[in-house]
């Protein structure tokens, strides 16, 4: 049964299903999204769906992609809360790639920020229609009814009607003009500690990930990629591979030169993944490596340092920096660097694609089904909407699975062979064929007056930009990518921001926290170096830096940043740090990114070259929290990822190709490295903001500051303890 009496465009929209019951969607006014700068104003309607069956079973669809960040629990719980659904009666389902769910590209820590309000409205709308249905049955006024835990209750006589009984009647009720949302005090699920909806399946091995898709007639593929960006196949001898039992095809995949297309490679198709992987090793391939064949990250990093230690291209300027520098009481400069990073989710890139004459169906771990539709549509010369994308649970993603080169490759193989193809990359291919976090260098020079006020700040950054994916001709990061430097909350009247040359020689991509990783590191560490120079402690020095910001538009943000930094300091015992044993120290850092504020206090013990992280106090202000336990878990995970990149992970290129291959030479954090992480989340009535990424940024600077406090040794290069590969 469907609701068909809706004519108001751009507000509420409904859709019918074959079975009885209430199905409801909610649309976001596009101009509201455009106003928030989230999407272009294209006039499209956006929907999210609730389905209540006649027996009361309720399905809530999550349109955003799940990769472990908990969004498929958080957003549906907001719907359930507003509709007074009993969470035990709710099943969460992942929506396929479909614009009716609104923007599904899951990145930028934006899911809750974008979808919280519309999902609440979807729930509230359903509740209003269920109440209206009950009122009709009882011939009373809706005001005389209320909803509670999957029932509507008659205030006069306490009669109850279940949501299942009401669903098909509710489907014919008018859709409320403006559904009333609950007050915070009445929330049952929002802001509480709700377990993940799918963890029962996880612990028994029944949760299906992209890598687990099985279809009748499925064939298995493995691939080896061209090791250098821009290279191409020169010669291929596939005879030995084809001789292997179980091998059916060897497929050449030329580079598809669009942002998320294949880098180019050779795939083997077999009757199982292992045989395909073994056969790949039997291929005799010569590559023409092309113009990036001399890429060497050790040399490149040195070049970046040179490029930021000399005048570069102006990105923004305010005040009079030369005057400030001329009148300085103290001057200080430092250069910070960082290497490429590989996302290395535990589930390597994997998908199943079946291209047939009249259809193309995809099952993939992905962060962006729409990009799969776009890329495959372009490759197959079909309409994006004709590419059916089933969004699978991703076994980690961290930005990697936003880019669908691996899905494109499976589509090529399926088209060539006519079979449904499961392509699983080996760990080695995953490590060597990434979209890497930018290698980077930043040089800061600052002046201070006699009171330790920062009077001038020159900030030069050089890193190959993500924008090079879309415009490979870029030779340096565009000024607009340096906005987070220009608009940093530290109060500096005279500032100049410059962009150093940094041509890309590999594919650069979003990695959890993106540029906040190195901006946070440079700002947070340099502030500590300045404080030391000025003879002040980090906390009072940074507070003074914030207080010197007179920009009216940033006062609310500064208040929040100072607040969480104070909490981090307080929880860590910052005031009593002088009492710590010799060789121990506490470092602080605070960073604003993805519209959220995160402060960390890292407590370390340093013995010679050994850095032992003991405790981390992590404080986040991300506005209203949807799932307190989920938010806590995100912060714990962010500390671990921050710690990996601060201490040990780095992707090295030599001869244009990645040298690292697996977890032995890309040493991510293991359990024995785990510090005691304490997460503190102050209650907030502000709108919800980013959560998945912002926690990563402040760890590395807080660690650098802690090690300095403990030992006097200053680390300015990420990672601090690179493995020689």
């Amino acid at each position, binding site marked *: 049964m469907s609701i068909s009496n809706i004519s108001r465009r751009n507000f509420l929209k409904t859709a019918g299903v074959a079975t009885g019951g209430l199905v409801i969607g909610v649309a976001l006014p596009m101009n509201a999204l455009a106003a928030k700068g989230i999407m272009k104003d294209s006039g499209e309607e956006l929907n999210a769906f609730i389905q209540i069956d006649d027996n009361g079973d309720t399905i809530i669809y999550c349109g955003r992609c799940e990769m472990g960040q908990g969004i498929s629990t958080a957003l549906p719980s907001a719907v359930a809360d507003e509709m007074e659904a009993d969470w035990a009666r709710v099943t969460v389902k992942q929506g396929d790639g479909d614009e009716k769910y609104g923007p599904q590209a899951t990145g930028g820590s934006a899911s809750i920020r974008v979808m919280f309000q519309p999902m609440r409205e979807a729930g509230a709308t359903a509740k209003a229609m269920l109440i209206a249905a009950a009122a009709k049955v009882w011939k009373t006024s809706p005001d005389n009814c209320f909803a509670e835990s999957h029932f509507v209750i008659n205030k006069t006589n306490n009669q109850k009607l279940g949501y299942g009984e009401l669903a098909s009647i509710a489907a014919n009720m008018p859709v409320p003009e403006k559904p009333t949302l609950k007050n915070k005090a009445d929330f049952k699920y929002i802001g509480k500690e709700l377990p993940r909806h799918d*963890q029962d399946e996880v612990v028994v091995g029944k949760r299906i*990930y992209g890598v687990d898709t099985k279809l009748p007639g499925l064939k298995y593929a493995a691939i080896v990629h061209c090791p250098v960006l821009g290279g191409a196949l020169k010669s291929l001898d596939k005879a030995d591979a084809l001789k292997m039992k179980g091998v059916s095809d060897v497929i050449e995949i030329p580079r598809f030169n669009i942002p998320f297309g294949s880098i180019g490679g050779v795939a083997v198709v077999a009757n*199982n993944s292992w045989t395909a992987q073994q056969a790949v090793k039997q291929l005799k391939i010569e590559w023409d490596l092309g113009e990036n064949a001399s890429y060497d990250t050790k040399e490149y990093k040195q070049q970046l340092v040179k490029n930021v230690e000399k005048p570069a291209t102006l990105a923004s300027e305010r005040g009079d920096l030369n005057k400030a520098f001329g009148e300085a009481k103290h001057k200080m400069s430092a250069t910070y660097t960082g290497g490429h990073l590989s996302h290395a989710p*535990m589930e390597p890139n994997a998908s199943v694609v079946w291209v047939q004459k009249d259809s193309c169906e995809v099952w993939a771990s992905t962060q962006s089904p729409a990009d799969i539709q776009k890329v495959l549509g372009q490759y197959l010369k079909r309409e994006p909407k004709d590419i059916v994308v089933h969004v699978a649970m991703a*076994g980690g993603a961290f930005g990697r699975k936003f880019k669908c080169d691996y899905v494109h490759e499976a589509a090529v193989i399926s088209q060539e062979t006519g079979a449904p193809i499961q392509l699983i990359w080996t760990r080695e291919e995953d490590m060597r064929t990434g979209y890497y976090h930018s290698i980077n260098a930043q040089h800061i020079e600052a002046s201070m007056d006699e009171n330790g006020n920062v009077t001038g700040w020159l900030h030069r950054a050089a890193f190959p930009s993500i924008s090079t994916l879309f415009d490979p001709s870029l030779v340096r990061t565009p000024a607009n990518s340096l906005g987070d430097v220009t608009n940093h909350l530290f109060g500096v009247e005279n500032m100049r921001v410059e962009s150093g040359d940094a041509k890309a020689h590999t594919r650069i991509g979003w990695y959890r926290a993106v540029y906040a990783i190195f901006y946070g590191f440079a700002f947070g560490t340099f502030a500590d170096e300045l404080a030391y120079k000025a003879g002040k402690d980090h906390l009072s020095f940074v507070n003074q830096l914030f207080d010197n910001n007179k920009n009216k538009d940033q006062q609310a943000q500064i208040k929040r940043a100072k607040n969480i930094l104070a909490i981090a300091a307080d929880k860590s015992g910052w005031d009593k740090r002088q009492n710590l044993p010799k060789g121990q120290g506490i470092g602080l850092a605070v960073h604003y990114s993805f519209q959220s504020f995160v402060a960390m206090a890292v407590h370390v013990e340093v013995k010679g070259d050994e850095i032992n992280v003991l405790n981390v106090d992590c404080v986040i202000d991300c506005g209203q929290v949807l799932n307190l336990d989920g938010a806590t878990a995100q912060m714990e995970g962010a500390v*671990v990822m921050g710690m990996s990149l601060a201490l040990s992970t780095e992707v090295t290129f030599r001869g244009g190709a990645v040298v690292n291959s697996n*977890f032995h030479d890309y040493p991510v*954090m293991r359990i024995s490295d785990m510090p005691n992480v304490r997460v503190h989340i102050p209650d907030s009535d502000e709108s919800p903001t980013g959560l998945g990424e912002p926690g990563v940024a402040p760890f590395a600077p807080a660690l650098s500051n802690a090690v300095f406090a403990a030992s006097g040794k200053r680390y300015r290069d990420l990672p601090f303890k690179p493995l020689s590969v």
Partner: protein
Amino acid sequence: MKQSIIINGKDHVIDVDGNMPLLWFLRDHLEFTGTKFGCGSGLCGACTVHVDGQAIRSCVIPVSSLVGKKITTIEGLSENGDHPLQKAWLNNNVPQCGYCQAGQIMNAASLLAVNASPSEEEIDTAMQGNICRCGTYQRIKKAIVEAADTLSKEV
């Protein structure tokens, strides 16, 4: 007579190339997908199963070397998903993406089978080979301690 192995109490004939690692025999041949592929080199622990009760990395063990052995995978760890570790995992909301957790649980089960009340250091040592990229280590430790506690009360 064809050789076979016992997986979660059932006999399975080895009718694949004997060099195939157990992982792919499970995943592609029997379609038991609970055991995960992470690295293919025994470096990450995502593929951990039990051979006669002992945790091994199924990605590097040829299936032919396991003739007649008893294999337990995550699907067979307990009758109803109620192993104390599975309950403790739920109680502590351990999983984020969850991909590594089958391997983590299987490895922890093997630890508790030989050491009913491991110290924090012993947990670290035993679980060192299991990577979680989401960073759930703190909760994994807590859950293992909790499960050990439950087990000690059962005896």
